[in-house]
């Protein structure tokens, strides 16, 4: 069946099986492998992307169900060579180690900050409570999001550091 959706602002149309999971659509059909998967039972949250601005576990969304919606993934965070404050924050505060859960964590952080620009530590922990990290012990992820909260861009963006 044919599906059309917006991925990172661009409209895509592809022919897929109804059973194709969104995470595989992104990774295998579109070749955007920044979104990862880590379990079979919708628990780990490694696959989180934004659907209409809200974090969802893309392993438990059918591509067909996502048709007509807006999907945002890690690949869309950097805009015109400028990194999102969330991305800067994770680098600055060592919020990632192996990087596997990081895309999902950053997408959730981005959605959180859009709704709550100055979240407390507790609110950040609650927001990421559906996503497992095995490397960082979470403290630095919280710090990364707090850094991003404190560096939200209101005026023209600073140069991206690579």
């Amino acid at each position, binding site marked *: 069946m044919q599906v059309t959706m917006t991925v990172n602002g661009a409209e895509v149309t592809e022919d897929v099986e109804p059973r194709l999971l969104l995470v595989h659509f992104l990774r295998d059909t579109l070749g955007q492998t920044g979104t990862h998967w880590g379990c079979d039972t919708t628990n780990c949250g490694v696959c989180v992307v934004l659907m209409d601005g809200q974090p969802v576990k893309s392993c438990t969304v059918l591509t067909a169900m996502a048709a007509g919606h807006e999907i945002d993934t890690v*690949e869309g965070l950097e805009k015109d060579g400028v990194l999102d404050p969330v991305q800067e924050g994770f680098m600055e505060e060592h919020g990632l180690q*192996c*990087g596997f859960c990081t895309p999902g964590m*950053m997408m959730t952080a981005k959605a959180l900050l859009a709704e709550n620009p100055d979240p407390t530590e507790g609110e950040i922990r609650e927001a990421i409570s559906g996503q497992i990290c095995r490397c960082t012990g979470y403290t630095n992820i919280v710090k990364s999001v707090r850094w991003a909260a404190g560096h939200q861009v209101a005026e023209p963006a600073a140069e991206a550091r690579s």
Partner: protein
Amino acid sequence: MASTEASTTDVAPDSATEERPIGFGRLRRKEDPRFIRGIGKYVDDIKLPGMLHGAVLRSPLAHARIKSIDTSAAQQHPKVHAVITGKDLEGLGLAWMPTMSADTQAVLATDKVRFQGQEVAFVVADDRYSARDALELIDVDYEPLPAVVNARKANDPDAPVIRDDKEGQTNNHIFDWEAGDKAATDAVFEKADVVVSEDMLYPRVHPAPMETCGAVADMDKVSGKLELWTTSQAPHAHRTVYALVAGLPEHKIRVISPDIGGGFGNKVPIYPGYVCAIVGSILTGKPVKWMEDRTENLTSTGFARDYVMRGEIAATNEGKILGVRVHVIADHGAFNATAQPTKYPAGFFHVFTGSYDLEAAHCSVEGVYTNKAPGGVAYACSFRVTEAVYLVERMVDRLAVETGADPAELRLKNFLKPEQFPYQAKTGWEYDSGEYEPTMRKALEMAGYEELRREQAEKRERGELMGIGISFFTEAVGAGPRRHMDILGLGMADGAELRVHPTGKAVVRIGVQSQGQGHETTFAQIVAEEVGIPPEDIEVIHGDTDQTPFGLGTYGSRSTPVSGAAVAMVARKIRDKAKIVAATMMEASVDDLEWEKGRWFVKGNPSQGKTIQEIAMGAHGTLDLPDGVEGNLDETAVYSPPNLTFPFGAYIAVVDIDPGTGHVKVRRFIAVDDCGVRINPMIVEGQIHGGLADGVGMALMEVIQFDEEGNCLNGSFMDYLIPTALECPDWELGATVTPSPHHPLGAKGVGESATVGSPPAIMNAVIDALRPYDVKHMDMPATPGRVWDAMNGRAEPPQ
């Protein structure tokens, strides 16, 4: 001859800043830019032209004879390219493969299946969905057999023999091993005023990295070269094993570990799925990808622990610890697939002597087979140091309760003293350095220990349950001296290569493999520290056996102690050679030169010097170098450590338990680590944070259990619970620095310290909280139900 080149001697080397140290210090990671953009390259991201997908059919039964396998329906599936069974592999001599412990493991079962989840057949199809569909078309006829699930029963006379494939194997016994002086220890126990014993289980748990295991095998028929992209913590070791197993010439095998989403020991072994992918590629002539799912990961790959221990501690009435004695039944599952140095089938368990000045110690370990997944050494255990530290720290706490001593005071009283180092432990180790008391006192101060005990006393009067738990650990890591330590005959030394290019940039190649530890940053920092080239000018190459020197890989916290030392050594060789080149360039004598980071200059005339960048250009140029000195600025080194390193730390956990439900909350966790010199404190702290979360996991929720028939009860993340951000407190970290005397950088490694030290701290806290209920011991995990059972006098091990 006078130099006619333009003078650049008055240009200072790139100046270091606090944000961008040249050498050790807090430095943002060089690998991060690709990860935060989602363009890391993990094995499942690999897509090769014509690539096919494999899937493994697994046994639903823990112990059963295979009567027949019918693959005809699967073979007829329009998207299936091949279906492989044990019989097919037998024909190729690949049905069995060696394990890292020199046992054998079935690649695909032939006669019997020996654990639930064991590999039985392999399907190669166009895509992962079809491969999964095809599995359902394979029909296997099993004849169930009784299963051995409890390690304590593995040696029962009527226990079925699991490894009847092994000639001469008439029971489920694998090995016996001991360390220490039994007679001396028995004598010490005889005369002791106080003897406390306790049975304790370190339950089976699983490293469960967020990325599961997998491989893409690409056999080029024409060149005969196999390229294997795989989740491996030890690419070179894997390459050698594949050469020995598959009969492929080793120079025709390239193992590439790209980015790895966490290892924690889970990615040390070679799994049947990898071998099947290779065979699939050979048969189909196309690349074959195999990525396991999470259930496969939890039920078939290298688990950790499963040590059934009986600990005993002997002391005087005054609280002087005299000796520790341990007996262990080690559950290795259906195949002995643990990876640890050959001479140490129980790993480094004999460091259970801990941080204390003992008169004697002895341990005996018996390894047994059971009808469960193979493994035991994994999940940041530092080769069984997790088990050892848990045992001794629980026993010390038991002793404290028995004698009415404060657990902090009891430890302080019995610590080894600095003047005793290097310390000959009673089981054979030589601890390199240690100054325990300041570390302990720092933790107590950070925790506000006295205040916590006061609060606890008040709460107890109100019937509220609060616990304070201490764990002081000494680890043995950094394997190891190649004379004594090998895996499958491969000595545990590591190579390093450093090349400095004409324009002063450098490439360092190492034999260890990052799975998140930040090697691309820390190893650049080591070179920077030694040679003065800024880290951003140093490329760190790892993970590709074609591009890196031989090394034994990353596990057991060995990267910094072994490979880090190799890099320091090779960098020093570069620096020494640079001195000669500089002397030649400046027409000075080598003896007249002095080093400041990044340049050699003439003693007493600092403005006359050459930066390392200038020297690099010179080395590649037309200089008339002295006899015996070759051009370019490249060096290699192989480092065999003279000893292990012994990081240590003091951990304090504060827990609150709801008396009505048994629910445990970790309120605070204070961790003071001493891992010697810290190359990048930010990375060190990150490593510690992660390990502390492991402690919350193991102490409160992680466990792999089986029912009587050997069905795994925790085969998904619905039932194998890993802590979220809500269960983890904000970690409170402190540091002391006691360098390793034998390590070139004084560094000891830290990767597993927190995973080792935290479970006993939390369990000691839980049991401390339950004092009003007279709970002497309870096993992990302290789930609400198990805590409540303990409160009601029914503390049982999870199985």
